[in-house]
C-alpha cells in the first residue's frame, strides 16, 4: 500500500520540486526619498520695496553670511 502511494505521489512531487527553483521571490522596497518642499513666491515689488526700506536696519544689524548663490537678484 505504501509503495503504491509513493509511486503515485512521486510523479507529482518531482515536477513541483524542480519547478520551485524557477520561481524568484523578490520584495521591492521603495527607496526613501526626501523631497524638497517647493513654494511659489508671488512677489509684489511695490510692497517688497516698502518693506525693504522699512527693514533696512536688518542688513546692518545682522551681517549675513556671504552668498555665492547664482540667480540671486536684489530687489
Amino acid at each position, binding site marked *: 500500500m505504501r509503495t503504491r502511494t509513493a509511486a503515485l505521489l512521486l510523479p507529482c512531487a518531482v515536477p513541483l520540486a524542480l519547478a520551485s527553483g524557477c520561481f524568484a521571490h523578490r520584495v521591492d522596497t521603495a527607496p526613501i526619498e526626501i523631497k524638497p518642499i517647493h513654494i511659489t513666491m508671488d512677489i509684489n515689488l511695490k510692497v517688497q520695496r516698502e*518693506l525693504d526700506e522699512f527693514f533696512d*536696519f536688518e542688513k546692518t544689524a*545682522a551681517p*549675513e553670511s556671504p552668498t555665492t548663490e547664482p*540667480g540671486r537678484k536684489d530687489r
Partner: protein
Amino acid sequence: MNRSTFAVVALLATLFAAPVVAQNPPAQGDVLAELKARMKTRYPLLEATRDAGKIGETREGVVKLVKATSAGDAVDPKDPAKGTFAELVAAENKDRALLYEALAKELKITAAEVAKQNGLRNLDKARPEHLVEIKGEWVQRKSVRTVTGNDKK
C-alpha cells in the same frame, strides 16, 4: 460745583477736545518712525532667538514660537527684564500688525496682503538653519525651494 454743572462742563470739554484730537492725529511718518525704532531695538534679540531655533517665521508674516512649551521661558535667563519668549513674539507681532496696517493704508491694499508679502520676504531672506513654518510644519529654510532660485543650502 454741583452734579449737573459738572456734567455740562465735561460734555463741553469733550466736544471741544474731540476736534482738536481729530485735527492732529499722529502723522504716518511718525508712526512708522516709532515702529521702526522699536523693531530695530528688538531685532538683535529676535535674531538670536531665531538662531536658537526657538522662534520661526511664517508665510503669514508673523513670527511664532516653534514649541508652545517654551512660551513661559525667559528669553535671557541672566536678564529677566527681557521677558519671556511669548512676550517677545507678542510684542513683535503687535508691531508688525501696526506696520502692515500703515503700509496697507499707504499702498491702498489690504493689511493681509502686506503681511503675506512680508512673510514671503522673511522666508526668502531667512538663514539656511532658521526654521520656517510651511503648511503647519516647521522646517529649516535650506529645505525649502523657491521659484526665485534663492535656495539656501
